[in-house]
């Protein structure tokens, strides 16, 4: 029981530390929020722009806006979870505290759980603010949308991105100088093949085949189905199960890979080097 309590306290330690960091770096958070809102709005306005450029014929601007809004919001949420988790190492390398955290008597699962809980809560709140601004600027009609189903899809997609984040977090561990930047490659490839801003059938066949392996593909299809077409929740299962399975596999595999990488870093002395 006391061992379990110890692990709970350690999990909370990471959540509380990250919350304190967000509080202390509030100006940066403000800048990041402004950037994210501007970015999401810019992409969403493409929908209205397409309507104008197409002369209003065969282009449903409102539908396009909602299509792009869903894409940007889901992508912001999932990529934010990914980045918070991959920063589990890079943030500590930057501050120089990595050795103190890794010599603490806690399980790596506890370490990752703390970072993950915070990542999910932070990403939900951050995306929520962007959503509110977007709804205020666009005349979005969600009367036919299945909001519960959309949220369920989003949460089911979180699992697989948590697993990918844990896998991605080994890069800053193994490559102190450039590891953090390498994580951008993973997110860029997922962005390309997942159909964030376009249906995946516009992609060449080879990329369409890769899209099958991206959990974001299913999350986007499912959420769009729920919000644009109002699909009932039970029909969303076809999109939910692949991403759930990916998550169930990716999280333990990610933790195992992280354990191997940590051992390698301890063998080669890579923990000490500050990138």
């Amino acid at each position, binding site marked *: 029981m*006391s061992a379990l*309590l*110890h692990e709970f*306290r*350690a999990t*909370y*330690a990471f959540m*509380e*530390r990250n919350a*304190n*960091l967000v509080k*202390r*770096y509030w100006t940066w958070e403000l800048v990041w929020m402004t950037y994210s809102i501007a970015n999401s709005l810019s992409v969403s306005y493409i929908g209205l722009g397409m309507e104008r450029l197409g002369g209003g014929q065969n282009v449903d601007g409102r539908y396009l806006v909602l299509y792009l809004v869903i894409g940007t919001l889901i992508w912001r949420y999932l990529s934010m979870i990914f980045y918070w988790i991959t920063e589990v190492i890079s943030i500590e390398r930057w*501050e*120089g*505290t990595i*050795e*103190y*955290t*890794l*010599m*603490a*008597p*806690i*399980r790596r699962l506890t370490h990752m759980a703390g970072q993950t809980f915070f990542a999910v809560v932070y990403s939900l709140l951050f995306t929520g603010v962007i959503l509110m601004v977007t709804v205020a600027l666009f005349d979005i009609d969600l009367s036919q949308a299945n909001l519960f189903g959309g949220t369920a899809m989003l949460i089911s997609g979180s699992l697989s991105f948590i697993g990918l984040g844990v896998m991605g977090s080994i890069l800053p561990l193994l490559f102190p100088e450039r590891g953090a930047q390498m994580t951008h490659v993973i997110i860029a490839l997922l962005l390309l093949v997942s159909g964030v801003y376009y249906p995946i059938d516009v992609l060449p066949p080879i990329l369409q085949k890769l899209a099958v392996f991206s959990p974001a593909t299913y999350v986007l299809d499912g959420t769009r189905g729920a919000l644009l077409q109002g699909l009932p929740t039970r029909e969303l299962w076809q999109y939910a199960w692949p991403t759930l399975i990916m998550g169930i596999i990716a999280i333990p595999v990610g933790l195992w890979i992280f354990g191997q990488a940590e*051992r390698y870093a*301890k*063998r*080669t*002395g890579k*923990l*000490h080097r500050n990138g």
Partner: protein
Amino acid sequence: MSDAIIVHEVYKKFGKSKKWLDRVALFRRKKVNGKEEPAMSNGRLNGDHKPIVVAVDHVSFAVERGEIFGVLGPNGSGKSTLIRLIATLLLPDQGTIQVFGYDVVRQPREVQRLINRVSVEASFFKKLSPMENLIYGARLYGMAGADIRRRVVEILTRLGLEKHSIYKPMEEMSRGMQQKVAIARALLSQPKILLLDEPTTGLDPRSKREVQAVIRELNQDYGTTILLTTHDMLEADTLCERVAIIDGGKIVALDTPHSLKGSIPRNGHEPTLEDVFLELTGKQLVKEAED
């Protein structure tokens, strides 16, 4: 008296040997000034290969329970590597290390519960306050919030920090104050063994004396076993019951400061530990930055 730490034949090197390259003719030999040179000589790879550095070379010693044990050596002698090996932050290539009977490789979590470390760099989240940093550190060791806050104030004021600076960002504090917070972080978890890796390097004389007083108090009042690395001869002489002198990854002498000083000839004055070091290694101790 039983042993707190047993280090047995520990060997640690850094850099890749790349022996597999030797099998490929292209990499086997390179020409230097028209002569063929082997890919490897004197334990170091030639050409563009990363050099192999033997940081700890078959080191053995034991630290008794409740002892202050010093490891003296110049920059790059392997002191910090030794501390990291005991702290489970590095894995030895050969040999074993036991902390109160627990093996650092096979039972790292048991070892981690018993130890804490203060290094030469006081590493913290610089935007966070000492209170926020110490709460984070203490929670990792299973302590509860209310208890931590009380103890943080207690320890930091004991170490001479003013109450208002406990809530200010670490980046606004002097190096000496940061180092005191680093010591407080280690004390919070009430370790059985404290690994101090040059804790007073870079501190002003007053801060240095305050830190040394805390080390002595911890050892005398709480029986904490202390492994202290330093290149401050006087610090080792006054604090440590026994001292190991390490050079090039090897222990060249291990005894009480008194016996070590008695082991070398008097040249018209009472020998110091620095004289002992010079006599044994022929090298000057560097008092600047750490390896």
